[in-house]
């Protein structure tokens, strides 16, 4: 046992556990909330939890790949939120509220 070098490093399991809990909060929220803004925010929470998992795992092995993946997740989140907010504006314009269930009543 080498308690000196091991004790100060954040245990990877705890970081991954935090990421899993954050992801679950986002997943539950995306299924419960019916407001489009909150659904987009839950997507951001879930993407951020994925990035946290990548960073913690990459830091555990001391490789830069985790941060590379985090940057790709960042670009995905940016593109997703731009299109999602544009859709939100359109939905607010057409439906006059932000209830996602109203969108299921559309006929094409």
């Amino acid at each position, binding site marked *: 046992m080498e308690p000196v070098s091991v004790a100060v*490093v*954040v245990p990877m399991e705890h970081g991954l556990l*935090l990421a899993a809990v954050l992801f679950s909060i986002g997943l539950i929220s995306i299924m419960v909330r019916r407001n489009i803004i909150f659904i987009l925010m839950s997507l951001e929470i879930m993407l951020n939890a994925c990035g946290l998992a990548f960073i913690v795992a990459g830091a555990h092995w001391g490789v830069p790949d*985790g941060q*590379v993946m985090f940057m790709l997740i960042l670009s995905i989140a940016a593109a997703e939120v731009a299109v999602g907010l544009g859709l939100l504006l359109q939905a607010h*314009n057409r439906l006059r509220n932000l209830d996602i269930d109203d969108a299921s009543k559309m006929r094409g």
Partner: protein
Amino acid sequence: MSIELGLFYVAAGISLVSTVMSVTRYNASHALIYLIISLLASAIIFYMVGAPFAAVLEIVIYAGAIMVLFVFVVMMLNLGTAGTAQEHIWLKPGMWVIPSLLTLVLLAEITYVLAAGSHALAGEVVDPKAVGIRLFGPYVLAVEIASMLLLAGLVGAYHLGRGYLSERRRFDRGRG
């Protein structure tokens, strides 16, 4: 348990609490404040596990750019109903005291971590140079794909937003 490891758990707790608070709010602006605090706590965790570049990106892009997009849209949608009375309702002390406390804890934490010598927790720090070399070496194809994704997002957002703005202008012209 060393004090640095305790700081990690404090940041993790703040992240969890603010995320739960953000998904249980009824008001979108309150939820956004808590979400920004959660992202700041994540940035401190990134810094403490030895990824300073990712921590900077988390604050600049996530808490900066993406959350500002959200705030813009929330403010834009509230234009019809909001007035100074609504603003007074939003800015009750009970609303901003808890976020301010959480942010102050995070501020004290990052001050301590910075003052105590950087990366007290990290086994090893992965510096931005290594990330850049890896990003433009084996992952250069992923960078190209990400650029195409961002271009698609740009075109899609422009297309969707342009329709909204032109209809809005027509609506305002017809009204005024």
